[in-house]
């Protein structure tokens, strides 16, 4: 019985995230996973290419604390991201929204791939016209022309 109680206590142990020495205890593992995911997906504005989980900049710590606070208040992931974007701008998102001004970002890989394929197709098509074997009609015409030339030279 005692052993079972210990097992139960182990299962009930509160979920906890630790980043850069700061402890973020959660009531359940689901919220803790959301916190860890948000800290991965949000970008530190000070250190440019680190996310909130990696960065030890003071502002990243403040932002992590805010994310934790908002999650504890029962806010959704979108609300948390929206809160930070409203203050720091789209820069804090590693996954920028598709909008008119981000179209270049999202469309350029597809456009470049398309251009590359087009280029390959054009170059191959061009090669084909040079080396292609004659079709039966063309061979027939060639034979006809040869025959006519021979006739003419015979005269």
């Amino acid at each position: 019985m005692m052993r079972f109680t210990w097992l139960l206590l182990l299962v009930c142990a509160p979920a906890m995230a630790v980043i850069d020495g700061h402890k973020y205890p959660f009531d359940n593992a689901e919220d803790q996973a959301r916190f860890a995911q948000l800290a991965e997906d949000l970008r530190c504005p000070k250190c440019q290419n680190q996310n909130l989980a990696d960065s030890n900049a003071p502002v990243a710590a403040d932002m992590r604390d805010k994310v934790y606070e908002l999650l504890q208040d029962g806010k959704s992931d979108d609300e948390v991201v929206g809160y930070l974007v409203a203050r720091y701008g789209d820069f804090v998102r590693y996954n920028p929204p598709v909008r008119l001004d981000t179209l270049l970002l999202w469309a350029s890989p597809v456009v470049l791939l398309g251009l590359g394929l087009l280029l390959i197709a054009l170059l191959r098509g061009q090669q084909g016209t040079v080396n292609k074997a004659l079709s039966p009609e063309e061979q027939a015409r060639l034979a006809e022309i040869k025959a006519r030339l021979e006739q003419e030279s015979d005269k």
Partner: protein
Amino acid sequence: MNRALLFIPLVIFALMGVVFWIGLGIEDKTSLPSPLINKPFPDFELGVVEDGRTLTTADLKGQPALVNVWATWCPTCKAEHAFLNTLAAQGVRIIGINYKDDLAKAKDWLAAYGNPYAYNLSDPDGMLGLELGVYGAPETFLIDADGIIRAKHIGDLNPRVWSTLGQTFEALK
């Protein structure tokens, strides 16, 4: 026509070169555009460094001002301080936010280097800073008489920066 196709990679390369050249030319890559431009100054209720009275967002209204985020741990803030004194002497209203700082150190600083600020809001835990999207002191906001944020400058204020920012400020009057 067919041979011309072979030059497509060269053209793409040249275009990329132009884009990267422009990218290299951007003077300050660490300066991010603020989404708070043309938005009201965020709500706050904070103590004043100088005398401890409590002020709110409503107290910012009435006339255009610079809101300067600074701290004693910030070397660039020290570098820009003399220029802030100059601006204050010219009659520019400057409101300070003492960001994540120690109150006693802030008072010592103002006593030692002069106080160009109408008053300083004490933001020891950086909560107003977070509302303002502050990520590196010094940062300076331009607010109009209605308390709307009209511009933001990241980094120190100096005569070169002020030559353009000052015009924006004059236009708010």
